[in-house]
């Protein structure tokens, strides 16, 4: 049966090497936890690309279009002020507000998309119960792996790759 093992490493290089060995031995490397962003780690784990930027583009443009439409409607249709015969649809100055608010909306959409794609906020996680996991945000490097069917073999691979501790992850 499949079991999940969490291996603890002293540094990022060892973790990266271990990841390759786990893969080579036919096991699955699910996730890595590091105290700082390690380049290409997400690629090595084979994580799918995020759509955060798409969400930001859509959120920003939609809000900007809405802001422009609001100004146009209020200044041309609902509350026209004829000031010395100047054009009601003075679109040049109407661009300022959509630009500002559009960028803010893009950022907000990005944050929401980021939270969704990482399944945050989360109040609790099975990993938080593992003793020592709190060092993942400080100075230790963790690799979450799943064995095909041979847990003992995965444990050996991890230990040989330099894991200082291997813990079984039990999810309720």
């Amino acid at each position, binding site marked *: 049966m499949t079991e999940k093992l969490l291996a603890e490493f002293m540094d990022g290089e060892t973790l990266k090497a271990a990841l390759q060995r786990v893969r080579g031995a036919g096991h699955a490397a699910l996730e890595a*936890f590091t105290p700082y962003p390690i380049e290409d780690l997400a690629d090595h*784990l084979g994580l799918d690309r995020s759509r955060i930027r798409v969400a930001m583009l859509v959120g920003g443009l939609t809000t900007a279009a809405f802001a422009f439409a609001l100004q146009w409607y209020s200044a041309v249709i609902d509350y026209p002020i004829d000031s010395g015969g100047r054009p009601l649809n003075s679109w040049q100055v109407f661009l300022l507000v959509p630009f500002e608010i559009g960028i803010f909306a893009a950022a907000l959409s990005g944050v929401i998309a980021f939270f969704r794609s990482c399944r945050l906020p989360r109040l609790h996680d099975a990993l938080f119960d593992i003793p020592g996991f709190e060092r993942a945000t400080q100075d230790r490097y963790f690799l979450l792996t799943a064995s095909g069917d041979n847990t003992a073999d995965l444990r050996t691979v991890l230990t040989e790759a330099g894991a200082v501790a291997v813990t079984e992850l039990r999810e309720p």
Partner: protein
Amino acid sequence: MSKVLVARDPPAHRWISSGRAGDVAITQAIADPLFTGFGRSWWFALLITFPFVLWLLGAIIWLFYQGIGIWGINSTIVWGVAIANYVWWIGIGNAGTLISAMLLLTRQRWRASINRFAEAMTLFAVAIAGLMPIIHLGRPIYAYWLAPYPNTMALWPQWRSALVWDFWAIISYLLFSLLFWYVSLIPDLATMRDRTPHRAGQLLYGAFAVGWRGSAREWSRLETLHTTMAALGVPLVCSVHSIVGLDFAASLMPGWQESIFPPYFVVGAMYSGFAMVVVLAAAIRWGLSLQAIITPRHFDAMARILLMASIVMFYSYATEWFMGWYGGEHAEREAVRFEFTGTYAPLYWALLACNCLIPQILWWPFARRSLLVLIPVAIAINIGMWLERILIVWNTLSHGYMPSLWRSFHFTFWDWSFLVAPLGFFAFLFLLFMRLVPSVSMFDMRQLAHEEQAA
């Protein structure tokens, strides 16, 4: 407080001047003072700044009660200290995001030591800046009329008004800065959650850390989000201060109606903001014993930017003079003459000294690395930039087209209040920030240490 990282002279690495700065050492150096407290000096500083908070509050209450007549403004100089303060504060506020975003996009790794508190500086400065137009309104109870909302009066904001542009610029920028700052804070809040010995701290930091685990997925998504936000932040910052410049340039007054105003305001913002960052960096470095993390090289890099900005500022002033002469209009030439010889001439000469002359000392490498030189220069720049803001208002309004309207501005106690009290309020907020949140980005520093092979 025991020092975890000991600074070396000469620095052992390019941007970290400690021999070895491992993950643990960096985390301890930055996070631990927040648990153990900063001792008496922090409380003392808080005690000094607290009266300023009360002063500001009292001044605002009195202003709302009495009206803007308590200021030295008159029927000619309708804009006074409030608008100069607004421009100055938002200029300082602009620098944090601009620094952080531009340095991130250009992959300047040394930003790791300064970006966090520069962004905090932005938040507080923009909040104070946002206060200024509201207190200046005269009828601040109607400030909400700037926002479009369904109302029985069937009123809409006047979209062609500079005040409405300001409203959207400030509010978008403030909220954007808050998000930008918070997003890069999440991993450090998780570190705080995992390190704090107090239950209350665990709950509080834990709530704001939203369950961050530092997974590869989270890191890669965060990086995507953060760099994209930075790319959006640069045009946003430039546009915000350009709008402030447009508030003036969209008018017909001599000395204001200049197409150089938007870019000139943006450079001025970067200039004063960077000067403020230098002062705050020196304070944080000393206050938190971060000599190993904020090194002379950082000050050197910032001083070079100040020097560059001072030259651009001088170029902008010279363009103003040139265009005043070249445009050939009498009132414009009069405005330039009034700058140099009129009522406020001593202040104008002081401005030129502070913004253009004094920073030239930064050509010498020793001056860029010596805090004893750099801090006075940075303070002089901040004073000079404030003088610039106030003189933009005074010179034009005091000496417009109509000689019968020529008047000068005289400070009242309340003008001084709104100049001085916000500074104390800013310091107060900054002290609280230092106590609650890691002032230097820990995960960025860990990454930097690994790249510098210092870990």
